[in-house]
């Protein structure tokens, strides 16, 4: 608290920070530089620095007192303002100040030949996003239009541009890309990911293999999720599986996040996870859905979707899971077929629509003849069933050979 802080002590703290900053830059010591920029860490030293700044109110004078510090005035002055605002819980003003400091930092960064400060840049990219998120929360809470995160996105784009060149700094581009993904996902402006993805994947200066493993996993996770939203299941499978395979095996939380999206993808291409996997990673919301697919139990699918509706909607997999309905129908009809085959093998390939209606009634689902015929027609159209339906006799005639083709890792035909 300011009341217990003397002016002299405030002075000392500020000068101390200035010294550490300029020393870190002079000796290219990124490990010492990082914590000086890491606002959200709320480290005791930054907190006490902020108190000092709020007491002194005239830190500019201290910055200007020596060339050692004043050369970084463009970075330090706004950074101090940011700290002051942050300490006073004024995120809405803290963010633009940090952005200004960050902007000045990247101007310096551009001039440094080697990539020594890359990790400090990562800290800045992270802080920009996190500060902007909090500022927007504050704005919304006060009935104002949230706009800082959008600004953060623009800023990060700029940082990306700085890193997107030949030279050692380019390996940082993927980290910034991932921060951008997080921003766009949060804002819902996911279409903006497209152009930065194109840059990473097509520009010749980038070699995907050169990027740090951790960033590659994050990148594949997000691009995999995009493929899920776009319902490109083959691509989604590829990317999410890559992320899973290269993810740190001890990082259970990350594995869970990847599986959360990979499982609906696998289900859509006909691959069911084992129960132990769902339990191991606490993804039991999918258990009933898997059951429903195994049993052809449409009622179970619908109730599972309803039970976890909110969760599935929020993660964005609801629509994917809903579409599994067709595979459940397929399974149900296959079961009827198997039963008929046991009773009367020669007549098994003919299925009366009435029988299907009855089976659905047992599952407490009401369907009229028209709808059953419609479902049958659709299953045939999508190659989930082979055969034809006879409208007048209200019968489905199944092909004698493989009437219920398996999906074998390919999604259901559009």
């Amino acid at each position, binding site marked *: 608290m*300011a009341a217990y802080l003397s002016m002299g002590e405030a002075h000392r703290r500020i000068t101390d920070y200035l010294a550490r900053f300029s020393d870190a830059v002079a000796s290219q010591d990124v490990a010492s530089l990082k914590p000086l920029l890491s606002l959200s860490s709320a480290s005791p030293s930054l907190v006490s620095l902020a108190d000092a700044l709020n007491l002194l109110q005239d830190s500019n004078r201290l910055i200007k007192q020596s060339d050692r510090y004043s050369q970084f005035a463009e970075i330090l002055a*706004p950074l101090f303002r940011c700290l002051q605002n942050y300490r006073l819980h004024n995120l809405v003003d803290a963010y633009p100040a940090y952005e200004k400091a960050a902007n000045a930092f990247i101007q310096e960064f551009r001039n440094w030949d080697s990539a020594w400060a890359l990790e400090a840049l990562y800290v800045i990219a992270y802080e920009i996003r996190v500060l902007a998120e909090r500022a927007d929360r504050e704005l919304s809470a006060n009935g104002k239009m949230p706009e800082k995160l959008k600004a953060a996105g*623009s800023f990060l784009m700029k940082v990306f541009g700085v890193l997107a060149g030949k030279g050692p700094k380019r390996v940082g581009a993927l980290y910034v890309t991932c921060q951008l993904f997080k921003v766009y996902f949060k804002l819902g402006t996911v279409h903006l990911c497209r152009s930065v993805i194109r840059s990473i994947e097509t*520009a*010749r200066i980038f070699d995907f293999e050169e990027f740090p493993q951790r960033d590659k996993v994050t990148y594949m996770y997000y691009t995999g999720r995009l493929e899920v939203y776009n319902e490109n299941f083959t691509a989604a499978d590829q990317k999410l599986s890559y992320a899973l395979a290269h993810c740190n095996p001890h990082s259970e939380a990350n594995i869970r996040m990847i599986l959360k999206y990979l499982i609906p993808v696998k289900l859509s291409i006909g691959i069911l996870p084992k129960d132990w996997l769902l339990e191991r990673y606490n993804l039991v919301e999918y258990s009933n859905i898997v059951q429903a697919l195994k049993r052809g139990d449409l009622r179970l699918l619908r109730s599972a979707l309803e039970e976890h509706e909110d969760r599935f909607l929020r993660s964005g997999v609801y629509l994917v899971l809903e579409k599994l309905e067709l595979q459940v129908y397929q399974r149900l009809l296959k079961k009827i077929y198997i039963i008929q085959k046991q009773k009367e093998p020669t007549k098994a390939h003919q299925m009366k629509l009435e029988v299907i209606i009855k089976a659905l009634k047992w599952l407490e689902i009401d369907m009229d003849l028209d709808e059953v015929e419609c479902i049958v027609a659709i299953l045939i159209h999508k190659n989930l069933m082979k055969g034809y339906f006879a*409208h007048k006799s209200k019968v489905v005639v199944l092909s004698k050979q493989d009437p219920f083709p398996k999906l074998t890792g390919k999604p259901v035909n559009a």
Partner: protein
Amino acid sequence: MERRQNHHQQPQNPRRNPSSSSSSSQSSNHRSRYRPPNRAGGDARPHSREDPYLDSGDAAAGGRPRSLARPMRAHASEAAAGSSIGVRERQEQHRRDQDREDDRDCRELASVVGTCPHMCPVGEMAQRERLRNLAVFERLHGNPAKTSPELAVKKFCRTISTRDVQLSDIRPFSVLGSTLDYLMSLMNSTPEPFETVHDFIFDRTRSIRQDLSMQNIVDKRVIHMYEKMVNFHVTSHHKLRLRSSGPDSFNISSLHHLNMEQLAKVLTSLYNLYDLNRDHSSTHKNEPEYRSLYVLLCLNSESLPEGERLSLWFRRVPTPVIKSKEMSFARRILRYFRTGNYSRFFSTIAAEASYLQYCALEPYIDKVRALAVLCINNGGYKLHPYPIAHLSNLLMMEESEVESFCNACGLETSLDEQGNKVLPTKQPAFEHPKAGYGKYGFSGLENICRGREAEENV
């Protein structure tokens, strides 16, 4: 026809200081970006598109969200000693000034309040009279060089430099409200062809949004205005479609496309307004219906190219809206569309759709009909031709239209032994009907319209 906005226009914001160091402007990004040498295959730096946080009609004055004017902050008096208060105040004021400077690129001028008392500023009226640039609705007794305050409506102007704009050119909220009502009244009351009416209202409502945006009016009052504008665009969506065959069809189909674009923007702004003005996590009266429209417009996820995928869009819909009757309808329609359940698709629309909802999903109706005909043709038993009468009930079409539709799909119909019309199955020549092939009705439409009239009379 007036000049249309380029599909990929970057937002312009001349108010911004071009030397600003902030990155929050997308256009200034271009100027201050570092350009590394040896770029392969074009720019590796992405171009951000305009984000319709608050639709301002895409004018230079907007395309970006603006914060409301910042409230004055109370002085923080920390020092106990009185003698240092003056210095401290000055220092804090300095810091606040710096904060404002920091924020200057995220912030526009403080809210302005327009003073133009008419639907059109006097200056513009005089100028357009001189230039004979008056729309047919603005002409006094048909005179192309004369208008009046009761007829002239301010045009949308893309290249407004907000630095130069006069308060007397901006219409205050009350004038905007009555302007909008006047425009809406034109929808059904003029003998002009619909495209002309649409064009006029399209442009003039865009100008209304521009004025709203410049005055930063984002509170509850505006919600109803945006809802009316959505009504206009959705109804146009339907009416333009009806007119998109014949000699004018190319023109009209581009009108249709632009209308869809604008509709998406207005809807997004409306949703932002709902979010911004929400109290106690309840919903606004019409919010469920207006939210449901987005789902119905996007049944096929490619239809709004910049539109958010529905999976992502649903994430941010408040739970009371998700559980509403209107949204439940839209989600079921979505499910039937995606799984191909044509049977329920049509019966549900007939039973539950409101007029606006019907208009929004109308373009998909024929697509699903085509799917149904395709499935029946491919999967139906050759010796059991499908009765047209049955198809007519299934697809909610008159029998004569069913026949013509089948023909448009490249299929022939015939008669069975009893003289009933049938569709023989397993015909090899199915093709999807070409766009603009013809307009088919919907058997339940009169009921839907009757429901709408009842709503409007309330």
